[in-house]
């Protein structure tokens, strides 16, 4: 166990250093990612077994990030994927299980890396102008949903970056617009800008309710919206450009003040809209230095930049779980950043066979 501790502590120190410096060049990233994988190959039994099954050995470990065997996010449903036993993990996040019956669990040994990674990414993406913010959360309160990674993330942000007056407005699936409106009025009176952190679906619900009452909700100057998540499993879908235009109008914001975050329960780090693309119709995602996307084809091989494929995430901050995770999200690497296309692009069936999503909607 001492060997494990020494190895884990050394890796954590390197990752924390990269987070603090907010820098990691190509070679250093490859080296760190491969060392994290080697650690997991040894101590994460289920991941190690998978890697061995496809030919990885102690003597033939990957030397580049692209060579690291990736696990599909679905694997978190089938096994404990952690370098320590679940009872020794400090954090447990449950996946939503949106498309399949079972949900998965992402265990993390310590909150330290997770919090450092999320705060560093958030600081660069949302707080670069240094404006102090009050947080309004249109996501489930973590006291109601204790194993929500999104709830944990936003609670951490509010605790570490907020003014102590944050509010949670989504309870039991219902949005408390009256209380939100009152709190925004108080923020105006206090002269404090607000950061509304919301899922896309909750934002639609807010805008619909405001529109039904013929009202708007102008936010104090300097305010912004962090939008996360999509519409999966919901009965109503609104296009992102339409949603942002409506939100900007209702909240008296510039559309560039609305920033999309892209993350997963199975990751410790998040992507955000790049600042340069926030004024354009096409947004691109930027990862923090210790997180890299690789776009792969159906056989798991990286595709050239500009070609659409499935996104694989190499997240060094996942030191105690799985460093390389394959998703079904589509995207392409471009000079401007990661173009995220989601899951629907090109997903239409060619024939009349049944589709699992369709079956679940019956």
């Amino acid at each position, binding site marked *: 166990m001492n060997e494990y501790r020494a190895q884990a502590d050394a890796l954590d120190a390197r990752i924390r250093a990269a987070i603090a410096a907010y820098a990691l060049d190509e070679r250093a990233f490859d080296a760190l990612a491969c060392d994290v994988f080697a650690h997991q190959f040894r101590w994460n039994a*289920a991941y190690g*077994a*998978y890697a*061995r*099954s*496809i030919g990885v050995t102690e003597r033939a470990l990957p030397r580049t990030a692209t060579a690291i065997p*990736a*696990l*599909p*996010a*679905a*694997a978190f*449903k*089938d*096994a404990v994927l952690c370098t320590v036993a679940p009872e020794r993990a400090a954090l447990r996040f449950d996946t939503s299980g949106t498309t*399949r*019956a*079972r949900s998965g669990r992402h265990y993390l040994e310590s909150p330290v890396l997770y919090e450092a990674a999320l705060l560093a990414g958030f600081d660069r993406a949302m707080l670069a102008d240094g404006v102090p913010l009050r947080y309004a959360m249109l996501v489930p309160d973590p006291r109601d949903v204790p194993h929500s990674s999104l709830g944990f993330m936003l609670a951490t942000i509010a605790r570490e970056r907020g003014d102590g007056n944050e509010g949670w407005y989504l309870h039991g699936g219902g949005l408390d617009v009256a209380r939100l409106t009152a709190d925004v009025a108080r923020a105006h009176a206090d002269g404090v800008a607000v950061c509304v952190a919301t899922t896309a679906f909750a934002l639609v619900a807010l805008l619909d309710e405001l529109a039904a009452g013929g009202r708007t909700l102008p936010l104090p100057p300097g305010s912004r919206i962090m939008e996360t998540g999509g519409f999966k499993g919901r009965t109503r879908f609104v296009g992102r450009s339409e949603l942002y235009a409506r939100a900007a109008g209702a909240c008296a914001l510039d559309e560039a003040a609305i920033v999309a975050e892209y993350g997963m329960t199975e990751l410790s780090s998040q992507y955000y809209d790049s600042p340069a693309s926030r004024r354009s119709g096409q947004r691109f995602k930027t990862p923090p230095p210790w997180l890299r996307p690789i776009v*792969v*084809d*159906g*056989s*798991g091989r990286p595709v050239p930049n500009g070609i*659409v*494929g*499935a996104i694989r995430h190499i997240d060094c901050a996942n030191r105690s779980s799985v460093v390389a995770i*394959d*998703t*079904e*999200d*589509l995207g392409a690497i471009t000079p401007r950043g990661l173009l995220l296309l989601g*899951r*629907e*692009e*090109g*997903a*239409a*069936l*060619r*024939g*009349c*066979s*049944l*589709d*699992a999503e*369709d*079956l*679940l*909607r*019956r």
Partner: protein
Amino acid sequence: MRKISCADSTALRALSARSIVAAIGAAAQRWTDADFPPRVRATAAIEERLGYTTPVVDYALDRLFGGITAEALAAAIVDELGSLEILDGFVERPGRPAAWARGANAVTVISSDTTIGVAIAPLIFALCAKCAVTVKDRADALVAAFAATLGDERAALQTATDVRAWSGGDDDIEAQTLGGADVVVAFGGNEALRAIRLRCASDAAFVPFGHRASAGYVSAPALAGEAGALAAGIARDALLYDGDGCLSLHLLFVERAPGGGHERFVDVLAGACAANAIEFPPGPRKPARAARIAAYAAAAAFRAANGSGRVMRAPDGAWTIVVEPPEDDLPPFGGGVIPVIFVDTVGDAAAYVERYRLPLQAVGIASIGEAAAMAQAFGAVRVAPLGRLQDPPLAGHHGGRARIADFIRWVDRA
């Protein structure tokens, strides 16, 4: 009387049903020649639209047009209506009033989500009923090309047919073609079918063909027989058209056999899949489909590495066999994936189907003697020998429905 699109069946109604049947059979006969120029053009267009390779499209067109014969058309019509002549006028019937099976005036066929030529069967039976038929075609224009050949045989067949392509939701066209039709035949997913149904006239007949799955069942005695031939049939049923069709095999139930024969059969099946991929090479999958299949296969490989189930996969992902997938993890239905589920009895397999309320189109079986039991157990509308799932007979009941009865109205002389 409703008038839609530019399809006009006036001239067609002057023809005898027998002559119409003969003309359709002759047109289809021309399309069985792989060098027939319209077929050559259509083949290229289908490959472009669906991404299938030439051997796959050729197989499909051979089966499609080879099955459209005057004899098969006549047999289906006589089976359902009693005679061909009953489509031409009143026919005396012992013990019942004389009757005329008069074709509906206007039929619309929506073939939005189809693999290759699914709209052709309803088109030709509606023409046999002397209806004016509007078909929403796909970008490959296969149906339009075949309609032109029908016109070469009998001009009245082409004037009775209006084949056009349009985008779903085009209000002007859909108001006319759906709202003005006496019969609407539609292929598509649940949401598309609901939307189409809402646009039909209140007294129109709606004939929906929703998305379906098909399954195979290999009994323990069958494992002791010609396992290689059985596996080859299963591979073709599952992998042809990349599993996109409702008649593609999407699930395989294999009975546990003494001595582990069911386990060994999976190895035989893997060999058959590899051979099938050579005979019918799959084309490229769209990225979303490829990602979904890759994720499913990788999850299976992860489980297998940790002692649960087994997975075999072509290096290029053309086919994937997943043995004993978790019961609560739905397979992707196609994409070259064959989930193999070991069972002790037909009842176990039926329970699996029931658990997910899987709408089964067909069940492939190893021995025709098992047909009645399988039909009873699975609630499928077709039971076929494994290897023949993708080759439905024209005179059969696709989707469990009549072929021509939906297109006629009975007129009694009493």
